[in-house]
């Protein structure tokens, strides 16, 4: 009853085009932000920051990156982790080799390098379509991992290519505590999340979807296909690059190239399948699912099935359940958790009545 648009008349296109048209949605969003920035740092404990919230935020950001490319622009990719690695290793080197470069700026530059790398591996998509693009993203995945493993220069001659987080100093604040790392991650992810919402609602977002849905028609109405595709690769990889830096520096602290192997790419693909392709909200829902699900499973295993299941079995069991969930989502809810959420809010709007018009 409280959640409906009665009495809210939209009289300007500008008001119609904002992110949340419903006043209740806006208030809800501000409350969510306020609690994430103020309440959670006060109440949360170190376990929640380090093991749940930070990886959740970073994976949401990575999901956004892949969602631009796959969910919006329709280009399949199995190389997400490669661009994360490029971001992390570039940021590390900028920070290491440029005297006095602020931490945030090195992360940003890492994202830019990842974006450029994305453009290079996106070039074949101009000549080929569909599954063929996969090979180029796989090339990125294996080539990048090989470069960072084989050339010690990138990890400052450390053994087996491990890189370690630089001091997390932002504007003179030391953010190396779990709560500090959480706030740093949250700030970056919120800013890039809002930007993402703008991107997909802008002309560029429309062009991506046009290329995804019908590229011949897109070309015929004058959309520049090469520019559109390459921007998808660039912006996608930029986001993944930033996510890679955060993964290495605010979540793990140290990371080796192996941390960005093809399984990480799969993980990010699963986030967008479960969360919802072509949705910004979906990345958060999918990432939350992927972080919480194993925690939940191991709690169940420890609580109910003590002694029945060892960790190896649990891992296999998780894999099976994961696979079934993916197939289940594709069959029943191809637009993922985001679409379930959307249906729910639609029902809420007309409650206690049952039907709504779109």
């Amino acid at each position, binding site marked *: 009853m409280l959640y409906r648009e009665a009495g809210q008349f939209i009289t300007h296109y500008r008001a119609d085009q904002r992110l949340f048209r419903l006043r209740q949605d806006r208030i809800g969003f501000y409350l969510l932000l306020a609690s994430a920035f103020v309440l959670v740092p006060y109440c949360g404990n170190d376990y929640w920051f380090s093991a749940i919230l930070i990886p959740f935020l970073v994976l949401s950001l990575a999901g956004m990156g892949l969602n631009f490319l796959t969910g919006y622009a329709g280009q399949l990719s199995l190389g997400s982790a490669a661009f994360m690695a490029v971001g992390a290793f570039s940021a590390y080197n900028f920070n290491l080799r440029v005297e006095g470069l602020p931490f945030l700026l090195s992360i940003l530059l890492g994202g830019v390098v990842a974006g450029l790398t994305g453009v290079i591996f996106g070039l*074949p998509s101009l000549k080929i379509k*569909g599954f063929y693009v996969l*090979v180029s993203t796989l*090339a990125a995945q294996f*080539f990048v991992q*090989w470069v960072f493993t084989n050339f010690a220069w990138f990890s400052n001659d450390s053994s087996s290519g491990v890189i370690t987080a630089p001091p997390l100093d932002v504007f003179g604040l030391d953010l190396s505590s779990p709560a500090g790392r959480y706030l740093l991650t949250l700030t970056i992810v919120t800013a890039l999340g809002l930007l993402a919402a703008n991107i997909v609602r802008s002309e560029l977002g429309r062009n991506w979807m046009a290329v995804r849905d019908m590229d011949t028609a897109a070309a015929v109405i004058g959309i520049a296909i090469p520019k559109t595709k390459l921007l998808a690769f660039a912006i996608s990889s930029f986001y993944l690059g930033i996510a890679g830096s955060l993964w290495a520096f605010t979540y793990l602290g140290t990371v080796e190239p192996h941390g960005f192997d093809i399984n990480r790419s799969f993980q990010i693909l699963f986030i967008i399948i479960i969360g919802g392709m072509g949705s910004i909200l979906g990345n958060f829902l999918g990432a939350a699912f992927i972080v919480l699900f194993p925690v939940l499973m191991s709690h169940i295993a420890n609580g109910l099935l003590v002694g029945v299941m060892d960790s190896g079995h649990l891992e*296999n069991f998780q894999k099976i359940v994961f696979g*079934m969930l993916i197939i289940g989502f594709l069959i029943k809810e191809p637009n993922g958790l985001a679409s379930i959420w959307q249906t729910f809010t639609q029902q809420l709007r007309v409650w206690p009545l049952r039907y709504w018009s779109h």
Partner: protein
Amino acid sequence: MSFFFEVLVGGLLAGVMYSLVAIGFVLIYKASGVFNFAQGSMVLFSALTFVSLLERSYPFWLAFVLTLLIMLVLAWVIERWVLRKLVNRSPITLFMATLGLSYIIEGLAQSLWGAQVHGLDLGINDEPFEVLGLLLSQFDLFASAVAGSLVIILSLFFNKTRTGIALRAVADDPLAALAVGINLQRLWLIVWGVAGFVGLVAGLLWGARLGVQFSLSLVVLKALPVLIIGGFTSITGCIVGGLIIGASEKLAEIFIGPYLGGGIENWFPYVLAMLFLLVRPAGLFGERQIERV
């Protein structure tokens, strides 16, 4: 120079193994338009099942038949519970479903049979011998012979049997095939079953070479460049593509690798396939589609 030829022949023979995995791919792609990422896990699953049965002292032939039956049951389950529910969905959706499938099959294989490495002895001597000054392995020759006969059997199957002809009809136009009364679901079952069989053969050969272990499911990734070079719809293409990938990655590793610090065979096939695509987008044996609007 003879060293060069040895590397070349070794690579070609390794390539035969890639071809075997790629053939399973092509069969399913042709019949149902599905880009089956789970082919690699099917290879793993069948090899693991076979080895585990052998270890429980089943005779060779019985283990083979039982494994084949299990692969057929698997095919039935996939057809019934996955493919049938995803009819008319986009190819990308189907691809992602097979990705989920590969997780299920890998999880299943390892929780049933454990994650340790199993040795597999097919009773074929793997000691090299010399022909015309080249060192060859008996096992590699056996593998190529198996691959060769498989290709011959499959092409006879496709060209001579009713089922094979129905399969080609479905590949050409599924709707028209339905309209003339072809039982699509039965065909899918057959194709996934045959792909399971090819997977078993590939799994045995790979397993005998490298040990039956989890990494078998990763050969699926190497099959992708093979398909791209050979074309997604051609069994001949699989063989040729496999040989090209196998030979070139070994040659590159031996002759270019040292200058780059080694390990380049991990990415070389993908880069090769990428460059190849720029020249021949439909592959060597693939058909180029004219887009109708």
